[in-house]
C-alpha cells in the first residue's frame, strides 16, 4: 500500500515544487484563517512596522547628538542598520513563529505534528506562518532602498549583488538564531528572555557599527557568534573602507559562508533538541 503511494508520488514529482506541496497547502489554510480576522490583521501589520520603525529611529536619534559614530557618518552607518533590519525582518517572517513552539511543547501538541509524515521544523513554520510580520519586511525593503541612495557607495552590478547576497545570507543567519533560541525550549520551557538576548539582542547589536562596542562584547557577539558579518563587514566592502579592526576588505563577501556555518550549528542544535522532547503526560 505504502509502496504504491510512494510510486504515485514519485510519478507526480516534477521537482521541488511537489515536495513542498503539503507545506504550501497547510500554510494557505493558516493564512486563510488569519485573514478572516481582517481588522486584527491590519492592526498587527501596522503595529509591527511601527515597532521596528522605532528601533531604526533610535539610530537617527543617536546621530542627532553626534555626527560620527564609531568612525562612521550617519549615511554609512544607516546603511548597516538598514541591511541588518531587513535581514532580521525577513528571517523573522520565515521562522519567527517558532516562538509559539513553547506553547506546543507545554501542551504536548507537538506530538500531533511528530506523527505526520513531514519535517517538524517546516511544519511548525508553515502551520504558524504569520503573514502579519510581512509589514516589517516591506518596511525593511523601503528603508534599505533609501539608505542605499544616501550612502557613499558606487553602485554597480557587483555591489548590488553583494547587497542581495548579504540580505539573503543575513536572513538565513537570523533565522538560524531564531531556531536555536526556540530550540532551547526543549530543555527549558520558559526560555523566551534567554533566547531573545541572542535574537532581538543580536539584531539591535547589528544596527550599529561594531566599532562602537567594547572589546569583550565585540569579540563575543561580532566574531564569536558572527554578527559582524550580517551588515558591518559587507557594508565596509561596499564603501571600500579598510576595517578599523584590521581585517581585509574582501571579508565582506564571506557572509554566506558564515551563514552556512551558523545554519549547520542550528540544524545540529535543533536535531538534538527534538531528541530531547519529553512530551507531556497521557
Amino acid at each position: 500500500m505504502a509502496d504504491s503511494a510512494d510510486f504515485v508520488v514519485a510519478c507526480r514529482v516534477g521537482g521541488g515544487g511537489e515536495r513542498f506541496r503539503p507545506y504550501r497547502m497547510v500554510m494557505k489554510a493558516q493564512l486563510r484563517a488569519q485573514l478572516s480576522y481582517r481588522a486584527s490583521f491590519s492592526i498587527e501589520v501596522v503595529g509591527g512596522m511601527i515597532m521596528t520603525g522605532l528601533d531604526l529611529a533610535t539610530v537617527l536619534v543617536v546621530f542627532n547628538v553626534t555626527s560620527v559614530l564609531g568612525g562612521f557618518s550617519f549615511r554609512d552607518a544607516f546603511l548597516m542598520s538598514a541591511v541588518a533590519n531587513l535581514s532580521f525582518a525577513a528571517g523573522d517572517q520565515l521562522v519567527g513563529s517558532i516562538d509559539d513552539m513553547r506553547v506546543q511543547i507545554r501542551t504536548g501538541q507537538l506530538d500531533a505534528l511528530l506523527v505526520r509524515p513531514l519535517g517538524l521544523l517546516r511544519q511548525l513554520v508553515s502551520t504558524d506562518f504569520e503573514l502579519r510580520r510581512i509589514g516589517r519586511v516591506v518596511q525593511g525593503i523601503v528603508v534599505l532602498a533609501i539608505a542605499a541612495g544616501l550612502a557613499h557607495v558606487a553602485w554597480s552590478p557587483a555591489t548590488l549583488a553583494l547587497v542581495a547576497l548579504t540580505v539573503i545570507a543575513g536572513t538565513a543567519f537570523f533565522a538560524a538564531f531564531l531556531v536555536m533560541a526556540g530550540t532551547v525550549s526543549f530543555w527549558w520551557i520558559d526560555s523566551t528572555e534567554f533566547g531573545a538576548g541572542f535574537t532581538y539582542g543580536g539584531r539591535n547589536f547589528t544596527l550599529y557599527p561594531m566599532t562602537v562596542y567594547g572589546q569583550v562584547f565585540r569579540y563575543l557577539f561580532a566574531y564569536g557568534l558572527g554578527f559582524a558579518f550580517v551588515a558591518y563587514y559587507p557594508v565596509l566592502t561596499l564603501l571600500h573602507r579598510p576595517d578599523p579592526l584590521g581585517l581585509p576588505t574582501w571579508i565582506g563577501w564571506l557572509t554566506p559562508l558564515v551563514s552556512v556555518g551558523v545554519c549547520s550549528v542550528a540544524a545540529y542544535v535543533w536535531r538534538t533538541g527534538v531528541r530531547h522532547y519529553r512530551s507531556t503526560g497521557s
Partner: protein
Amino acid sequence: MTAVIEAHELRKEFTVTEKAGRFRRTRRAVAAVDGIDLAVDRGEMVGYIGPNGAGKSTTLKMMTGVLTPTGGSVSVCGLRPVADRTRLALRIGVVFGQRSQLWWDLPLRDSFELLRHVYRVPAVEHAERLRECRSLLGLDEFEATPVRQLSLGQRMRGEITAALLHRPDVLFLDEPTIGLDVVSKQAVRAFLAAIGAAGDTTLMLTTHDLADIERLCPRLVVIDHGHVVHDGSLAELHARYQSRRRVLVDLDEPIDSGERLSDIDQVRAAIVDVGPGVTVEHVSPDGRRLEFGLRDGANAGALVARIAAVASLRDLSVIEPDIEDVVARIYQD
C-alpha cells in the same frame, strides 16, 4: 511471519528534578517504561492497559517516533520509529485522545482535505476512504462545522477518520473513548471493531475503559510501573488472577439453625458443604442477603441446592467476573 510491532527491552527514563532544600535540587532518573518486550502480528487487536503513570502513553509515543527510547529497541512496520519518523508516519495512524490532528478554525472537511495533501493520498482513494468513514461514523451532520465548535464525541470521530484516511497498516489509539458519552463510545467501538474485522489493520489501543477491551481486543497487555505484568487473552487474565463469579442470594428469612445467622462464619458453618472453590464473601446485617464467590470450576447449582435445603430462596443472581476487579487487584499489588 514477522511482527508488525516489535519491542525488545524497551526503556524510557525521564530525569526528574526535585527541590531539596532552599537552593539545592536533586536530579534522578525515573523509568516510565522499564524493559518491555512485545511482539504484535499483522491484524491483531491489542488492548494496552495499566494505571495512570504505568507507561502506556510513553510506550505508544516511542512506537510512533514521538519520543526517543533511552534503551532497548523498537520497530514498527520494519522501521525505526525515531530515525525513520516521516516514512513510518505514512504507514501508521495515530489518535492521541488529548491531541488533535485537526485544524481548529477550519471545518472538519477542510482538515480532511489538508491531510490528503499531508499524506499525499491520491484524490480517488481519499474520497473512497472518506465515504466509508462518513457512513460508519455518521460524519455528515457535522462535516461543515469548524472543529472548535464540535462536541468531544464528534471531534473524536473526526480524529479517527483523520488517522485512517491514508489507510495505515497500524492504528495506535491513546484513550480514544476518554470523556465520550455512551452513544459516541458505542459508535467509536463499533467502527474500530469493523476496522479490526477487515483484518489488515493492526490495532493497538490504550484505555481505562475496560468495556473497550472486552468489545475490541482479544489480546490484552497489562503494564504496571513500566513492566508487562500480563500478556494474553482476557480469559487467561481471569484464570491467572483467580477471578470469581459471584452468586448473590436473597432469602425470605435469615438461615435459622436455632438462632438467626447474620455473620460470615456462622453462615459458613450452617451451610457445611458449600462445595469446592466456593467462599462466603459477604452477609448483610439482617442475614437475608448472602454473597458467595466461586472459583473456576465451582458448581453454582450445587451451592444453590444446598442453600435451598436450609433456607427459603427469594431471588438469585450470578455475576460474571468483572475485568475491572481483576485489573484493580493488579494495580494494587
